[in-house]
């Protein structure tokens, strides 16, 4: 069976249309603000339209060139949310009387988009990150704890989550969430087996071994430290939650979640008792109206949302000037007041769709590290959005997290665009046409993620001509290029990496199996299968290469002959027939136990 090119289509035009559509939502908000407030379209709208849509077209072209197979809806959703955020900030500018925020925010957006383009053009293989788990975690923890350094960290409104260098302030936790997601993924990709399987069953709950608990305890202590010393419940919750969710995704053991909840509950109770500010947050959440002078923003947000009602007051007709921090923490209340609960729900659905596409990317990816990384980024994004919008709408205690893409603030904007860029790179890699290049004589693919490298057809052509080399020592001699550019596996002796041929042996059938796939369409009668009708085009058999030989990448290109796989390697195929490699761990990390 010739290796079939399989993958998703390039959705270039779709993506461009969706981007322009998504951008138009924010732009419509901007136009409506002018119409509703001044009965006129804002005078400078052509300039803004050129900048705004120009940015969208630019990012589309960049993505189309660098990552053509990436998910076509991630960028449009991101730009739609950004647009709604910008329109809200512009609308707040009109009534706040302070210096306009729209300009600065747009600059942050441009920086974010520029970084996205740099990442999608330069980063080709996110798996490289897998090699540095400890460096990444050290960097992540450093970023998280940076605000505690005297003179560097600054305390803003009670929370010590900012650093300030030379006039610029920055929230390092925003970058830390990406770095830590990568480091958790690298650690868990290594330890999945142990964490999933080792342990004892106590009280019907499978408990992990004590020595596997180290990193969990470390994360727990760290998140409690953030809660106590940085005074930020949200950041603490975000990172501990991210870690627990990623362990759960990697192992599919509910016990990790229960353990995480117990740990966080115990830690929370301890902190509640000894750190007064956390208790106050809880009180403001449960009884905001008992603290009219302290829980002001929660009360104001409630009134704002209630004033907006179902359909909202209309763009420009609400009173975000009455809500403290309507431009940052409480932006979902400001937007929600003007577009109503119907609009706010749509925004939440958009965030949900973004997370959904991120998790889908994780499912499609083949490499376990990349899978976990994509899932971790999605969960970080999910937890952050849930915590802040939940806080504003009083589902949860209010935390000092930013609303991704909407809140005013450069570090949040830039960090979230980096997050989206990473997801897009992963998505492009996972969705492009893939050929399983490691093909044995049985035509069975060895897909153990450690040993598999996937190629696009173009890359295979390049391997054939010696332009590029595969990273892995796979038996390239077995991959030949037909005239059509399709790659056909040779029936020659399997000479690949020994590790590829471990695993479950397929029982040797008697008589020998016909190797060609032969599930044919519905049979009208229990008929006798049609006679053999597959003239084999005998291919020149390359000399067998010893397994220990260094890889020689000289896949012969057979010009113009349209080589197909000889149909009957059968028992006469030269050399020993290794068992069909099968690695049960290669896929379905997410499906384990979820029948």
């Amino acid at each position: 069976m010739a290796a079939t090119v399989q993958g998703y289509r390039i959705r270039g035009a779709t993506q461009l249309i969706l981007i322009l559509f998504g951008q138009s939502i924010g732009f419509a908000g901007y136009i409506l603000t002018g119409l509703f407030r001044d009965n006129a379209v804002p005078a400078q709208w052509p300039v803004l339209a050129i900048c705004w849509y120009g940015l969208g077209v630019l990012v589309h072209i960049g993505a189309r060139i660098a990552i053509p197979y990436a998910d076509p809806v991630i960028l449009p959703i991101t730009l739609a949310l950004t647009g709604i955020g910008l329109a809200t900030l512009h609308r707040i500018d009109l009534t706040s009387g302070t210096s306009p925020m729209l300009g600065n925010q747009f600059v942050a957006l441009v920086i974010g988009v520029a970084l996205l383009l740099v990442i999608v053009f330069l980063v080709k293989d996110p798996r490289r990150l897998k090699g540095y788990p400890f460096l990444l975690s050290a960097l992540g923890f450093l970023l998280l704890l940076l605000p505690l350094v005297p003179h560097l960290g600054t305390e803003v409104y009670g929370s010590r989550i900012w650093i300030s260098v030379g006039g610029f302030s920055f929230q390092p936790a925003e970058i830390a969430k990406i770095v830590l997601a990568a480091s958790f993924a690298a650690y868990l990709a290594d330890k999945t087996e142990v964490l999933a399987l080792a342990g004892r069953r106590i009280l019907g709950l499978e408990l992990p071994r004590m020595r596997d608990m180290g990193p969990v305890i470390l994360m727990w202590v760290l998140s409690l430290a953030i809660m106590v010393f940085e005074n930020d419940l949200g950041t603490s919750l975000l990172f501990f939650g991210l870690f627990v969710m990623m362990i759960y995704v990697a192992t599919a053991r509910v016990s990790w979640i229960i353990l995480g909840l117990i740990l966080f509950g115990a830690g929370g109770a301890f902190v509640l008792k000894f750190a007064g500010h956390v208790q106050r947050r809880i009180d403001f959440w449960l009884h905001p109206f008992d603290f009219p002078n302290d829980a002001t923003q929660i009360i104001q947000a409630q009134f704002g949302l209630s004033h907006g009602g179902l359909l909202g007051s209309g763009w420009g007709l609400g009173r975000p000037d009455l809500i403290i921090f309507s431009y940052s923490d409480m932006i979902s209340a400001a937007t929600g007041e003007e577009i109503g609960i119907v609009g706010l729900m749509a925004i939440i659905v958009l965030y949900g769709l973004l997370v959904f596409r991120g998790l889908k990317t994780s499912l499609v990816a083949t490499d376990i590290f990349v899978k976990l990384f994509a899932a971790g980024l999605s969960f970080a994004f999910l937890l952050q959005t849930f915590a802040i919008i939940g806080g504003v709408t009083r589902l949860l205690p209010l935390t000092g997290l930013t609303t991704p893409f909407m809140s005013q603030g450069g570090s949040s904007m830039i960090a979230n665009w980096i997050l989206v860029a990473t997801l897009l790179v992963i998505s492009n890699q996972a969705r492009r046409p893939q050929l399983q290049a490691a093909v044995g004589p049985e035509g069975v693919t060895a897909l153990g993620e450690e040993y598999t490298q996937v190629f696009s057809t173009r890359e295979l052509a390049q391997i054939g001509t010696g332009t590029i080399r595969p990273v892995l020592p796979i038996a390239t001699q077995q991959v030949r290029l037909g005239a059509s550019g399709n790659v056909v596996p040779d029936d020659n002796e399997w000479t690949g990496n020994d590790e590829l041929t471990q695993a479950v042996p397929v029982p040797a059938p008697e008589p020998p199996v016909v190797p060609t796939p032969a599930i044919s369409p519905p049979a009208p009668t229990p008929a006798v299968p049609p006679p053999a009708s597959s003239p084999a085009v005998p291919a020149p058999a390359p000399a067998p290469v010893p397994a220990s030989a260094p890889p020689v990448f000289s896949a012969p290109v057979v010009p113009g002959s349209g080589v197909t796989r000889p149909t009957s390697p059968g028992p006469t195929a030269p050399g020993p027939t290794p068992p069909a490699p099968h690695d049960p761990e290669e896929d379905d990390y997410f499906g384990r136990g979820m029948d």
Partner: protein
Amino acid sequence: MQAFTVLVLKIAFLTILWLFILVIAAVVNADMVGRRQKKSARLTGDGPQPDVPPPAKQARKRRKEPWVLAIDSGLHAGDRLQLVPEVRIGRSETCELVLDDDYVSSTHALLSHRDDGTWVLKDLGSTNGTYVNSQRIGDPTIVSVDDTIRIGDVQMRLET
């Protein structure tokens, strides 16, 4: 601006917002369905035929034996597939029956014909297991026309 105009424009804006979500959903859906159609086209299309016809003397005996796999639910539901003596089932391109389901391992199970006319189903170390009549099988199991085989979300039966 008149209150009525404001109301109309407000509703128009919200309609556009939700329309965007619907369009996104349609694109996501097309993304999935488009891929599945390609798969099933290959499965039921003019794929390669079995090379070796069954020996003539067995032909009569074969009529009574089940040589058709009927898929009842999941991917390719409703398809009836002509079997060959050895059918690997899995997500990998190289299997005889390709089931592109998230819960199916790359080489999931093996359905093989034995000389006495029975079919044996063997799990090839799959992640999510192979089920015969809702029982997860560990050892190779003989299946007949009365048994329901389930792999991932796909249920199938043997038919004569």
